[in-house]
Structure formats: structure tokens, C-alpha cells
């Protein structure tokens, strides 16, 4: 079953096509990777899917329902959560409250605050957050802030998460832990769509990969196919 499907998705910034007629789909239970050089339109595509932007043309369907044009909170409540390339957490709130907020607002059914806090605690454990949960999140290290963000996304009872460069800025050990976390998220039954620059990570965990360049899709397929693609090598390594 297809979880997410995009048809000729296009977005312009001024005269520049940031994303141009991109077709894609993500199967349920899959880890789907998105790569491409800087400025390829990866984050723009995430913004289009999550509702931050509305596509100029094309249709995005989530669980067979059209979502392009909906407000971000609606898309979130339908079961699609995201993280951000530059961590966006509530810095003055404790980590646990950051996550509880996702459980309180991101789900279609309303939870009691006590239950939301309990779930938030469990999710923080799940993502490997091992420092005190009641200190303001702004003082946490980058890796822990990213964990809070992932836990907040999962707290919305998402069926699919968009992870935007989860591993950027992490140490090799932390990257390995993050890779393992991504597979554990999939094993919970959550479909993963991730943007990543760390090649080893993306080749290691993804079932399929799509490559964007100047807003256009230039390849998609299994990691092996992508690694062997002449076009992709050209884009990444030059002529």
C-alpha cells in the first residue's frame, strides 16, 4: 500500500523552480531516502508535504487523501510528523513538555495531560534520551535536542515521519545510534521518509532512495541502483 504519493509536484520561488514536476511514492513500512546536492529542493519538498508550503501545481496524497493545500496542524493530526534541518524545539520548556505537547495537540483524539506526560517519558526513553527530562530543552546538547524533536514527532501518533538531516552534526557514534533509531522507528510501524547527507547512513538503512538535482528528480531506486547510477555519480562527483 502506498502511504504517500506525489504527482508532478512543483513549487516556484520567484522564477526559480525549487521543485519541478517531481513524482514520488513511499510504501507503507518503508524507509525512503532523499538525497541531492545543496539547493536541490529536498527541504522544500518536505515543506510541501508537511503543509508549510502549498505546491503551485501537482497533487500530494497521504493515505489516499489529498493533503496539498491543507494547514500543517491538519496534516500533522492526519498522522504525518516531521523534524527540522535546524532543530526547532521549545527551548524554555522542559524536554518532557516538548514531547508531551506533540501528544496533546498532534493526535486527533485529545489526551489527558497526565497521560500525555507519561507517553512523553516513554518516548524519550525510546529515542535514547538519557539526561534529566525536566530541565529546559535549550541547554541540551545537539544530539539530545534532536532526540527530543524525534520523540515529539512520534508523540503525535504519526504513521509517517519526515526526518530532515537527522544525522547532520553528530559524531560517528551518535550517527550509528541514530541509524539504529531510524530502523527501530520503522519497526514500531512508522514509515520513514528521510533527507540525509551522510552517505553511509542513507545507504545503510534505506530501502529505496530518490535523488533530486536542481529541483528535478534524476534517479530513484534501491541503494545499489543509486550507487551504480552514472547520472548520480556525475552530480555528486562532477564530470
Amino acid at each position: 500500500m502506498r502511504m504517500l504519493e506525489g504527482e508532478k509536484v512543483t513549487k516556484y520561488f520567484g522564477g526559480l523552480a525549487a521543485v519541478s514536476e517531481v513524482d514520488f511514492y513511499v510504501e507503507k513500512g518503508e524507509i525512503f531516502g532523499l538525497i541531492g546536492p545543496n539547493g536541490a529542493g529536498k527541504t522544500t519538498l518536505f515543506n510541501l508535504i508537511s503543509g508549510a508550503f502549498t505546491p503551485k501545481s501537482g497533487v500530494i496524497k497521504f493515505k489516499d487523501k489529498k493533503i496539498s493545500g491543507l494547514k500543517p496542524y491538519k496534516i500533522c493530526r492526519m498522522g504525518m510528523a516531521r523534524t527540522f534541518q535546524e532543530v526547532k524545539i521549545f527551548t524554555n520548556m522542559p524536554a518532557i513538555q516538548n514531547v508531551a505537547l506533540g501528544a496533546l495537540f498532534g493526535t486527533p483524539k485529545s489526551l489527558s495531560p497526565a497521560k500525555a506526560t507519561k507517553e512523553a517519558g516513554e518516548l524519550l526513553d525510546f529515542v535514547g534520551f538519557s539526561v534529566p527530562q525536566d530541565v529546559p530543552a535549550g541547554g541540551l546538547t545537539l544530539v539530545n535536542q534532536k532526540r527530543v524533536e524525534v520523540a515529539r514527532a512520534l508523540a503525535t501518533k504519526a504513521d509517517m515521519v519526515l526526518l530532515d538531516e537527522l544525522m547532520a552534526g553528530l559524531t560517528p557514534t551518535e550517527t550509528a545510534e541514530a541509524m539504529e533509531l531510524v530502523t527501530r522507528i520503522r519497526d514500531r510501524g512508522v514509515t520513514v521518509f528521510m533527507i540525509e547527507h551522510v552517505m553511509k547512513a542513507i545507504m545503510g538503512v534505506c530501502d529505496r532512495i530518490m535523488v533530486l538535482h536542481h529541483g528535478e528528480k534524476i534517479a530513484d531506486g534501491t541503494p545499489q541502483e543509486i550507487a551504480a547510477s552514472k547520472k548520480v555519480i556525475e552530480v555528486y562527483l562532477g564530470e
Partner: protein
Amino acid sequence: MDMSFFKSRRLWVLWLALIILVGLATLPLYGSLYMTILMTAILMYIILTVSWVIFSGPTGYLSLASAAFFGIGIYTSAILLPNTGSAFPVLVVVIIAGALSFVVAVLVGALTLRLRGIYFAIFTFGLVELVKQVLIFFEINVTGTRGRFIMLVDTHVIYFIMLGIFVVLLLTAYFIRNSKFGLALRSIGENEEAAAHSGVNVTMVKVITFGISAVFMGAAGATIAMRWTYIDPYIAFNSLFSFLPVLMAIFGGLGQFYGPVIGAAIFAYLEETLLTKFPYYYMLIFGCVLVGTMLFMPFGFTGLIQKGWRRLIGGQHADA
């Protein structure tokens, strides 16, 4: 820190609030008429400040529209309670004024709350001028009048209405601050984008809160207009009423629930006393007090109290 300390402190605060409330409610019995009038003015400033904080405190959107909603309240009173006699009970007029301010705030909010930072502040400030100029135009070209007289209302009635608005406002502010809705507001102030993508309907939360804060400003305006008895667009839409709530909130400190209340009370008392005792130097002294606050009390008056409290008990837990 043990919880009994917390509980006893909360109970203590509740008792203190009750005693103050009883003291305020029985004020006309033991205080002079001047005391009642002074307290009406102080309560008005507290209402303006606390209702400003309801919206601008957690979200960080600097609203300078207070004078517009306050003025709408004043004009509602002036139109529905003319000195020639009125068909409406006073309390009904106050409620209508609140409702009208709410409607205007929701309409304006829905249009402008996508603006951020300085743009929002400038727009809201412009709103005050817009309403003022429209009214002046209307009075000159349509009615051919200047200003309006308002029916005489008993000083004590005015005081009790103001006190009633104040109590309802404090309960509302407390409830919002400690509810899921308040959490949504804070998340918007911290990171609006993240809040939206975590399922918070940011537009709805912002617009509703903006409307709620306007209700109390409008109601306070309608009430104080009965005391002023004559108003015109310059009096009703004086931009000072946009800036004072901001200054009073900063003076009191935004970190605590009671900060703006204490700030507005001291500030308003100071203003009234300075105005009567030093009519010529009042603005000068007032300015010095403000500069001193910014320089030496960056967290406001309550920040100073907390610092002292912490030093007194030698702990780090004065942030209940």
C-alpha cells in the same frame, strides 16, 4: 525540594489573594470617596496590563492595539449611555462593549496575525490611529458634533463593575496560563513553526486569545467612560493606553503570574500621586523611574523580589 513547602506556599498565596479581594470589595465601607476613585483607576490599569499580558506575554507578539479596544469600549458606553438617558442597564453596556471589542479583535487578528515582530507592532499601533481618524471624520462630516457626554453613574457602581471585571480577568488569565491552551500559546511564542507542525492550530489559538484579551480592555473602557462623563476621539483613542500596559508589564516583570498585577498597581499609584503632587515634574520623574527599571531591574519588580527571596532562603527554587 519537598512538596509540602510548595503546597503551603500556594495555600498562603490563595489566602492572601482572598484577603486582598475582601479588602477591595469592602473598600467603600471604610475608605474615602477619593480612595474608591483612585482604586477604580488603578484597577483599570491592572486590567489593561493583565489582558495585554494574556496575549503578548506568552506569544511574544507585541500588540499596541490596547488603546483601540479600550476606545471601542469607551465609545460603546458613550453611544449607549448618553447623558439624555439610556434604555440599557449599565452592566449590559459593559458586556456589549466587551463583545464588540472581541469581534473587532478577532477580525483584525485573523487579518494581521500572520505579520510578525515589528510589523505586527506597527500595524496594531496603526489600528488605533485608524479608528481614531475614522471617528473624527464621522463626527465632523456626518454628525457634526465633537465628543459625547455620558450619563452620570454612581461612583461605587463603577468601582464594583471594575472590580468584577478584574476578578473575572484574573481567573481567566490564571486558567489560560495553566491549561493546555496556555501551553499552546507558549509554544507559539517559542517556535511557531514547530508548534504548527506538532498539531497546534496556531492561527486559531492566536486569534481567540487576541479576542479574549480585547474583551477585558473593551469592558474596562466602557466602565471608565462612565467616570470620565465626557469623551471625544482624542481622549478615547489616546495611544498612551497602548504603551502604558507594555511599560507596566515590564515594570512588574513578565515571568510571574502576579508580576503584571503588582507592576500595574504600583505604576498606576505612582502616576496618580506624581500627577497630583508634582504636576509639572510628573513626566520627568516618571521617565527616570522607567529608565531606572530598565537598567537595574531587567526582570521587573517581581524579578527583584524573587532575587531577594532566593537570597533569604538560600535556595534556587523560588520559581513556583
